[in-house]
């Protein structure tokens, strides 16, 4: 079970995309897991044959648990766990070694924590449920036909040992959302109109009809929103608690860069055009290698510089909340590849089909609120990263050119950085270097 962020402790294996005996190659999607951040695709990092599956669909296991074995090479011989322990499918697992080496036959051994994951009354996922993420909500992935509940609601129901079948849903299409479970739990403990911790849209303890979905407010604790909100809350609270931020800002004259980009786009069909947002990402990615103290992670009281720039991009979801998947090794990409990487991330983020490696491996994050018209943004670092770059809108601003006043398009770039890992001096040099990159690209 891959870690998809510092705050993730467990995930639910909602679907296997490969079965034992299937050939797999590096990069294949082999499973879908359900987390606070929605449904996430798990990739495999080696090539071979799908071996034994150790975690059944519907099972919840802690981060680090081996999900399945991959038999490397092409030997069709079904050599089970014996000799060399096959590599774990996920690199990023803390507790892997002991688990892999113990060739204990029953998969039940995998879960050191809560042995039988039974309480879930909503357990058996349809074996062949085809994920059809037409809408940004991806909750239905593993939903059994009868009970529609968000991942967060299921999670919460397990925590509180609530039977989802008895919970009235208030989400879209009557889906059970987390606050419904809280409400049900509150009713169980002390019946009465005690306000649940979250904003309570329900006016009183009325036992609403089973499938009337009262759309109090369209943005009420919607299915994916509630769980994403919770993930954001925990990461951001931790950031402000633990990270001593410092903030810097620089206005960058984009006249030449945008003129260059405009001329380049004019000759291209719509699919080939590059947005200014991608140009800014490109500039950050290509400048960062000179500033390793901004690109990496802080853990165990030490900074760990990252070997590549895995550029996290904060993407707002239309249903509310945001995710920040990354573009791997962005410093190696040219401008067009950066643009297609960004377009791909945005469309998959909104369709709820991100991959595990994209969510867990970012080394810095960029947030661009320019389309909203804000001038600048001072971000909150996404732990365990150590820096967050913000861009505001590109707007005409008075600038001094030689001794004259001119009006040029200007963007305000900000840096929020972890003072444990870097100092303002280097942070300032980084901003200047990005500005230079953009002014010289033309």
């Amino acid at each position, binding site marked *: 079970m891959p870690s998809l962020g510092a705050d993730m402790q467990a995930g639910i294996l909602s679907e296997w995309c490969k079965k034992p005996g299937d050939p797999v190659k590096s990069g294949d999607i082999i499973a879908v897991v359900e987390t606070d951040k929605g449904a996430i695709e798990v990739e495999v990092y080696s090539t071979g044959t799908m071996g034994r599956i150790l975690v059944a669909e519907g099972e919840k296991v802690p981060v680090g648990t081996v999900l399945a074995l991959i038999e490397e090479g092409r030997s069709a011989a079904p050599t089970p766990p014996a000799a060399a322990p096959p590599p774990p499918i996920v690199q990023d697992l803390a507790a892997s070694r002991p688990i892999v080496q113990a060739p204990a036959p029953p998969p039940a051994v995998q879960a050191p924590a809560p042995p039988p994951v039974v309480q879930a009354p909503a357990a058996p996922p349809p074996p062949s449920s085809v994920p059809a993420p037409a809408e940004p909500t991806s909750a239905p992935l593993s939903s059994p036909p009868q009970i529609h509940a968000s991942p967060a609601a299921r999670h919460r129901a397990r925590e509180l040992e609530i039977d989802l079948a008895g919970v009235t849903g208030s989400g879209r299409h009557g889906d059970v959302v987390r606050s419904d479970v809280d409400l049900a739990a509150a009713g169980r403990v002390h019946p009465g109109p005690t306000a649940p911790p979250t904003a309570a849209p329900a006016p009183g303890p009325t036992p609403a009809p089973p499938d009337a979905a009262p759309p109090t407010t369209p943005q009420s604790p919607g299915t994916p929103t509630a769980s994403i909100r919770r993930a954001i809350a925990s990461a951001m609270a931790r950031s402000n608690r633990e990270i001593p931020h410092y903030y810097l800002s620089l206005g960058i004259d984009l006249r030449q860069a945008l003129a260059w980009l405009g001329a380049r786009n*004019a000759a291209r*069909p719509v699919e080939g055009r590059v947005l200014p947002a991608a140009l800014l990402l490109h500039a950050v990615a290509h400048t960062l290698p000179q500033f390793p103290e901004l690109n990496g992670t802080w853990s165990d009281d030490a900074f760990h510089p990252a070997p590549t720039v895995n550029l996290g991009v904060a993407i707002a979801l*239309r*249903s509310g909340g945001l995710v920040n998947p990354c573009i791997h090794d962005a410093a190696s990409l040219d401008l067009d590849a950066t643009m297609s990487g960004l*377009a791909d991330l945005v469309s998959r983020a909104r369709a709820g089909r991100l991959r595990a490696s994209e969510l867990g491996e970012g080394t810095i994050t960029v947030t661009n609120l320019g389309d909203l018209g804000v001038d600048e943004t001072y971000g909150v670092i996404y732990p365990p990263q150590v820096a967050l770059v913000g861009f505001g809108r590109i707007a005409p601003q008075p600038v001094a050119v030689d001794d004259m006043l001119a009006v040029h398009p200007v963007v305000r770039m900000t840096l929020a950085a972890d003072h444990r890992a870097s100092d303002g001096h280097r942070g300032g040099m980084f901003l200047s270097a990005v500005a230079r990159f953009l002014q010289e690209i033309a």
Partner: protein
Amino acid sequence: MTPLRAHIAAALSPVAPEADLGTVDPRAPLRPQLDLDSMDFLRLLAGLKQRLGIDIPEGDYGKVATLDALEAYLTARGAGLGAQSEGADGAHP
């Protein structure tokens, strides 16, 4: 809904599934009404090109800012004449 508007709605739907053109003021800027960022807008244009074969060049973005303007622009460029030429149109003004 006019056939052209139906095409626009269809091109919009993968980008902003919850968007409803029926609630849009056709004479006011489209993007803020539907909360479309620059990437969303680009994807909308790509969808329109796929359906109508009309590629709206970047220099013309200012001419398609409202729903009415977008329809007028597409009509002037030949949409709705029955011809669904597949990507035949270039980026000439």
